[in-house]
């Protein structure tokens, strides 16, 4: 005669559980509905604060931090204070997805800001799109992220990888034919950002008659660059374009030094804007290296000087490109919210599609897919300093070194 008793107990326990869960569900929903204008606006984000790109995410987070402090000092947004809710995804896509889902559906944040790297943004953008949240991403310009025609996605740099080679290729095209490099080595990390850029470089320079004599992709775990450097040396290219992301670019330069190979021209993606770049390879070895920049501390855009000065004061260090990128994303979001005058995601997105925003990387506007319509800057190390050499309007140095001196110390 035990069964009926059990069944009864099961039934009542189930009812109690249902009641409890329902109560919790309702309780969780209330605050969002009753949000009043005195409560702070919460902006959610998840950053790769641990894991392989942690050293670039930290300045990124500080850029956001600085932006919020500055915003609050000026009275906040829509008359309300602004708070950041920052989660750590340890550079794991699933965690990033999970974090943004949580921010949207559990924490019910008012606004989102984007995370770092193409890898993470390509995973997170669909989540924001699905829930119709404006998603301004500070970094990660792989063009394919924007190939899905999302309406709520915006990139806070001047261009995606699609237009990344433009300035450098134009510079080469501007040279007399006999002064152009004859041969090209492409060597890149296997990453959506770099492989696509390298492909474009190969095609565009090929059209100028530059022959590709070496074209290899290396895996993210690669630590032995000596053999790669040696193989490139044996291929004897004039120009080397290295699609690097971070430390891999430094490793390749060190290996070039070891095998005593210095190309006539050397262009590197991403790595040279890392604050520790000059220290890692020696300041004098940086001479003549080209790279692209989304932002420059010297650029004469209205808010830029204030940002550089304020940030330096607050963090006792000059802002890195990553810090500037997140600051830019914040500027984009704040400008749109102020213009719309309410926290209406669709209205904010619509406004951004139609208008131009003044930022520290210059005026930004977007096409229907969220691709920005600007161009990157072309930089080159000259006398230990990263100078902008193109476009002319933003240039900080009038000269371009077309023949890189040999490495120092080799």
């Amino acid at each position, binding site marked *: 005669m035990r069964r009926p008793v059990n069944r009864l107990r099961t039934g009542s326990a189930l009812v109690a559980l249902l009641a409890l869960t329902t109560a919790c569900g309702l309780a969780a929903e209330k605050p969002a509905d009753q949000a009043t204008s005195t409560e702070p606006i919460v902006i959610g984000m998840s950053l790769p604060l641990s894991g392989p790109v942690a050293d670039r995410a930290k300045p990124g987070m500080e850029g956001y931090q600085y932006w919020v402090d500055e915003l609050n000092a000026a009275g906040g947004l829509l008359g309300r204070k602004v708070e950041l809710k920052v989660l750590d995804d340890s550079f794991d*896509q*699933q965690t990033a997805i999970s974090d943004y889902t949580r921010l949207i559906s559990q924490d019910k944040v008012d606004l989102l800001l984007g995370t770092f790297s193409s890898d993470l943004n390509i995973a997170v953008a669909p989540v924001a799109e699905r829930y119709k949240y404006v998603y301004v991403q500070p970094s990660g310009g792989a063009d394919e992220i924007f190939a899905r025609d999302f309406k709520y996605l915006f990139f806070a740099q001047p261009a995606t990888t699609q237009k990344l080679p433009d300035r450098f290729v134009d510079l080469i095209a501007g040279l007399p034919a006999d002064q152009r490099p004859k041969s090209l080595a492409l060597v890149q990390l296997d990453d959506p950002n770099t492989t696509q850029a390298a492909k474009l470089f190969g095609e565009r320079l090929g059209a100028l008659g530059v022959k590709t004599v070496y074209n290899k992709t290396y895996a993210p775990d690669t630590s032995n660059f000596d053999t790669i450097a040696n193989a490139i040396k044996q291929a004897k290219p004039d120009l080397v374009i290295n699609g690097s992301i971070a430390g891999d670019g430094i490793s390749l330069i060190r290996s070039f030094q070891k095998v005593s190979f210095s190309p006539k021209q050397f262009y590197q993606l991403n790595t040279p804007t890392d604050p520790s770049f000059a220290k890692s390879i020696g300041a004098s070895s940086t001479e003549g290296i080209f790279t692209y920049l989304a932002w420059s501390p010297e650029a004469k855009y209205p808010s830029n000087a204030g940002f550089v000065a304020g940030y330096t004061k607050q963090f006792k260090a000059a802002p890195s490109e990553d810090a500037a990128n997140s600051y830019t994303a914040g500027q984009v979001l704040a400008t749109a919210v102020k213009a719309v005058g309410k926290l209406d995601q669709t209205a904010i997105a619509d406004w951004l599609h139609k208008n131009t925003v003044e930022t520290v990387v210059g005026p930004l506007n977007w096409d229907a897919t969220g691709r920005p319509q600007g161009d990157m800057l072309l930089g080159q190390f000259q006398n230990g300093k990263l100078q902008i050499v193109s476009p002319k309007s933003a240039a900080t140095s009038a000269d371009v070194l077309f023949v890189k001196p040999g490495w120092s110390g080799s």
Partner: protein
Amino acid sequence: MSAETSAPRRRVPKRWLIGLGVLAAVAIPFLTPSSYIHNVLILTFLLGVLGSGWNVMSGLTGYVSLGHSAFIGVGAYTAGILASQWAVSPFLVAPLGGIAAALVALALSWVTRRTRGVAFVIVSYAMLELLGLIVRNWSSLTGGSQGLLMPLPDWDVRFHNWPFYYALLALLLLSVAMTSAIRRSKFGLGLVAIRDDEDKAAGIGVPAPIYKSLAFMASAVLVGVAGAIYGYYVSFLTVSTMFDIVLSLQVVLAVLLGGRATVWGPVLGAFIIVPLAEVTNTSIGGVDAGAFRLIMFGGLLLLVTLALPRGIIASVARLLDRRTAQAGARLASTALPVAPMSSRTLAPGTDLLRVDGVTVQFGGVKALDNASIVVPAGSITALIGPNGSGKTTLFNVIDGTYEPAAGDVVLNGKSLAKLDRTGRAFAGIGRTYQLPRLFDSLTVLENVAAVNDRFEPRRLVHSAVSGAEAARATGLLEFVGLGEYVDAAATDLSYGQRKLVELAQLLMLDPAVILLDEPAAGINPTLLQRLAELIRSLNATGRTFVIVEHDMQFVLALADQTTVLAHGKVIASGDPATVSTDPAVLEAYLGDDFVLEPTTGPRP
């Protein structure tokens, strides 16, 4: 890993508790609209499915995998590629993801057919990394580092995660049901036997390669399906997410925490680990959050291994289950039951087993040197000789442990040279060991029920603890005098009792020839006498014995014929009385004061 979980300790939670849990899981999407809670549960279910799969390979079979998330990757990419090529819903092709994962598992079992222990762990990790690199580099098919886009879900946003949620919940329940079924089956017994002692298992008719292949496939198939659904859920496949070493480690932590080789351990572990990870993700902030999380995760792993090496379920069960100690070791001194009949007996007198000129060499030492013996059907042959004379080595040649440099072993007119140990067990060779080798995580009954006298796929699903197999095993245990110990853990038995269980295993196998390796060593006189009676009564049913023994009185009283080995060579052969007076034998082994007593113990 040798988790100590035997059948009687397997504590199935009360049925209503399970029902309640399932109902709650089914109801949650209706109760809370929070996609975040759905998301956490989806990840929990995924880890639960992965953990249950891992548990079959690593908990039950003992092959510890550090690369189990590879099956998620294989399932996800298979479904992703097929869904885009055939333009169908990934749900439709998810089962194919499971099949692909099972095939990869089959390949893994083939590659590692001779790999055990820590080497296997390393191979499993290598498999994960290598598969990840292949997927990454095969970019024309998989999108490489650009990733593979899955279609976005096309149902209404209100139901956003429901299909993923229920699909993974169903897979989790299926995984638990599968583990539970395996654990109760004869197949499951075989897996545990492999984990405890793979060589011994091979000798009692557990074909390890087949069992391992099946277990690996079972371990991967549902994980592959879950991977396909998970991939669709993420909507974007990259190598770093789908072949994720962190997930592979999380699953180890989850199952260790919950309880290895238990049915519900992986589920419990998943329900602890995933929410815990979520809480720490969101509660620890600041730029050092990552470092703190690493310290916490690593510390937890360390703590579990140090404090809870058997997991929560086994530890709790042990607390609840302070079983009364078994009644003292005592043999039934009643009259011997009737010996079970053998189905293999041959006409007495024909040559059943022939060892022809066998030579075995270890380095420069010849352990056996052109040794030959002939064992007639229905006989008891004593194999004697000083220590190191090659007796056990001869057994190892007969049962296929060693491959001889020269010579052949012939059973019933057929050479055994091409057969492995399991093949020889099926052909009719059964042996015991000097130090009895039992499966310590199994009960006495399970130890005997694990035996197979032939391989039949049908039999794999037979229940291990009930039905005809179990009844036969119980009968054999009663025959050897251990009827009261069927449910005892093998570890609770005395040394002598363990020898009797090994004998019962052999009777279950019912081989043509029974090889006993020093059965009399280290057991008390009462048991010795009992053993002699058992051997005689079994011999009376037509069974054939070869006995290696140092207790001359014991063995020569039993034996019909005797072979003496010294330095790997046969120095004498014949009936016991003649051999025991042979001067060469006396000099080499017995000593010249040896006198053979007429009998030991009464003839039945």
